[in-house]
């Protein structure tokens, strides 16, 4: 089965290895699974670091099994999630349970500047590949570990599946109508905040190593990352004894402030009027200047008192318009308003397109899909999406022979004995 890119398409990404970039020359080994580890590696790989991702045929990165699938064939090489999350990386297979597995992994880790892992609390230690063991041989090595709730403590061993982490991290309880059931938050904060903290920590540690010669073991977790961002609410509880609640779409200091139905099926517009000036702009923008002198609406205080009525009137207006048109009318008047985009809207969004948010990859095994750049654009050394995530074991031979210099005969011997399963 081929998963080479199709070079005939103008938008096709190259299958050549990443070249150049701000992090060119940085060597990274990633034992990443699902999102937390792989996304740390992704930030680095898109900026030109050489990232070698280690998997085993006995223990795949679970995101290889997540789809979505653009083609009939469903194999570990055809899912879009893995292809997106692991763009620009080299992929190797190595069986740590093979008698020479740990030794080969160790050679690779000692070649690297940075090791990224979210394999569980003790997996690398169990193979003699933990930070202390590597640092004894190379004090400059940097290791970044991601866990659900940290390496130690009474709850550290509890599995950190994303669906449960939303609840644990306090996000579920804050999502939805105050009187109703907490809603499933969907935005992957517990999966996508920790790798951001991890990437920041790795880059800071590289600077520290440059200045001191010393490496370090960096540890981030899903629980701590979310609790860190929640600081205003944890302070509110400590100082005032107030426990923050979910608030639906309303705000105590703004009205109208909500999501309003538009023309069409399941089409919506968010409108947030956050000042008296914006209220005037809204009334003028939708030709309801009569509301400006209306005793029910003339101050925020009375608008809050009459909010149900106000929301109904706003929705009378939005429901006569396509959400894009209503958005343009309100934005032209200076009112914060945005369409609730769905998957198709995002793929066709003019702003994302104008910024070159993603690069379309036409991949023979996966299909045609977008791989996003990070949300930050460096003016002089921008990120570059060069190729989608590797096929399972695609670069095993390249990495062991060309990077680690294993002789051809030894590589063949190890391969025949199952070391690269």
């Amino acid at each position, binding site marked *: 089965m081929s998963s080479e890119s199709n070079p005939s398409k103008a938008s096709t990404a190259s299958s050549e290895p990443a070249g150049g970039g701000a992090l060119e020359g940085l060597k990274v080994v990633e034992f990443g699974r699902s999102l937390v580890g792989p996304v740390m590696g992704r930030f680095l790989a898109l900026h030109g670091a050489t990232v070698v991702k280690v998997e085993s045929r006995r223990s795949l990165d679970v995101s290889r099994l997540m789809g979505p699938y653009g083609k009939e064939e469903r194999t570990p090489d055809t899912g879009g999630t893995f292809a997106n999350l692991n763009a620009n990386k080299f992929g190797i297979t190595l069986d740590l349970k093979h008698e020479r597995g740990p030794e080969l992994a160790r050679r690779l880790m000692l070649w690297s500047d940075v090791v990224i892992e979210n394999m569980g609390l003790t997996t690398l230690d169990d193979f003699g590949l933990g930070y202390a063991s590597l640092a004894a041989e190379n004090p400059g090595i940097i290791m970044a570990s991601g866990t659900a709730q940290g390496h130690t403590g009474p709850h550290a061993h509890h599995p950190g599946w994303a669906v449960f982490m939303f609840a644990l991290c306090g996000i579920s309880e804050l999502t939805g109508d105050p009187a109703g059931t907490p809603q*499933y938050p969907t935005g992957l904060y517990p999966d996508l905040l920790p790798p951001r903290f991890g990437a920041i920590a790795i880059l800071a*540690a590289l600077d520290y190593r440059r200045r001191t010669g010393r490496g370090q073991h960096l540890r981030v977790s899903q629980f*701590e990352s979310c609790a860190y961002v929640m600081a205003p609410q944890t302070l509110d509880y400590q100082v005032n004894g107030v426990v923050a609640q979910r*608030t639906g779409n309303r705000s105590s200091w703004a009205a109208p402030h909500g*999501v309003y139905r538009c023309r069409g099926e399941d089409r919506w517009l968010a409108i947030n009027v956050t000042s008296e000036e*914006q209220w005037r702009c809204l009334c003028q923008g939708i030709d309801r200047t009569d509301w400006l002198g209306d005793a029910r609406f003339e101050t925020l205080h009375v608008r809050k008192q009459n909010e149900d009525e106000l929301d109904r009137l706003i929705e009378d207006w939005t429901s006569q318009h396509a959400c894009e048109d209503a958005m343009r009318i309100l934005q032209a008047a200076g009112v914060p308003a945005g369409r609730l985009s769905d998957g198709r809207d995002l793929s066709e969004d003019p*702003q*994302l397109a104008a910024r070159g948010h*993603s690069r379309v990859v036409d991949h023979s095994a996966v299909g045609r899909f977008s791989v996003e750049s990070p949300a930050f654009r460096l003016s*002089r050394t921008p990120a570059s999406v060069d190729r989608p995530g590797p096929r399972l074991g695609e670069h095993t031979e390249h990495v062991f022979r060309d990077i680690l210099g294993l002789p051809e005969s030894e590589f063949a011997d190890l391969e025949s004995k199952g070391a690269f399963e």
Partner: protein
Amino acid sequence: MRDEFPVLSGYRLLELADEPGVLCGKVFADLGADVLKIEAPRGGPDRERAPFAGDRRGENTSLHFAAYNAGKRGLTLDLEREEGREIFLDLVARADFVIDSYAPGVLQTLGLEYASLARANPRIIHASVTPFGQEGPYREFASTEMVTSALAGLLYMVGEPGEAPVHTNFPMSVHAAAALDAATGLLVAHHERERSGLGQYIDVSAQEAAKWMTFDVALRWELEGAILRRAGAALEYAEGIRRRVHWRCSDGWVAFAVFPAPSSYKSARSLTEWMQEEGYETGAFGEASWEDLDYFDMSEKDILALEDPVAKFFEDRSMQELYDGALDRAILLAPAMTAREIVESPQLEALDFWAEVADPDRGGDARYPRFLRSSEVSVGVRRRAPRLGEHNQEVYENELGIPAERLRKLGDHGVV
């Protein structure tokens, strides 16, 4: 061994940012950089954000401000005045990083866009965090976090099917990601600067940062032509197949579900056993042969009926009882924590998660979170958030060498 030499000590970041970018400077401060927060003489908008200590509104009482500005030093400076801009460029010459969250075009109008900063200091790295970025058709759009998350595809995905989607009250749900992306960008550019000696400009879009919080939404459309939709308190893990995730318990909510995975089947059997020990009917849930079920072939009604027996068991127990049982019995269940449970979490206590900081303006000592633990350096808040203009004299007089007399005049003229 921990070293008291923090990881980014010796570097200085100038912050001209409120909410969308404010966490970037916070992270730099926690890593030991000298972060100078520069506010207009009347104070920035985040000082007016609730909650307030003791519910007392004041320029130094906002807990929102405290949470995201602890560890920084505070300056005031009027950038609309020529003298203010000169002082700012003096600071730029002595800084390594700048972050701002002005609307696109504002810094150009002030003559303080990246090109001008680079003339003062060619090594400067400058990041701007805005809702939609510096270019493109939405660049001038007025926005809030909720509006940005609408256009990022996040808002559409939350809430009851058929009803209006609903925003989360998780603070900075979108802006945290954008500010952290700015921090990553600054440090990527810094790594490159160590080689080239040159700075650069970084344009951060909160819409893009937020969009990637649900990256599977666009992927599913592009590869499968499927529009993912919100599923209420459940997770829709394949089109039309929802799994209930949030369940009521005696004092709140817990998350629980069975998914097609061996550890999840084990978790379901472990829960069955616990329910039976306590004398509960386990019905269809207890009899299910999980390995043989084809979830893709079951209707939502079937799945709900299958899982129904656990509801009563959960309703009769508190979050704490259920979590204790889940920890003991390897059940995949988690309590829906609030700020209270997080502050009081024994797990966070064991991790040495909190740093104690004295803050008399806000009711005394309070504990601030850490985002990172390191084998080598200490990370975390070292001082409370700055009062308005608290470090003007320290920085302008002692570090920039502005004579006291001139500084007084600048104060009289409202520049600082």
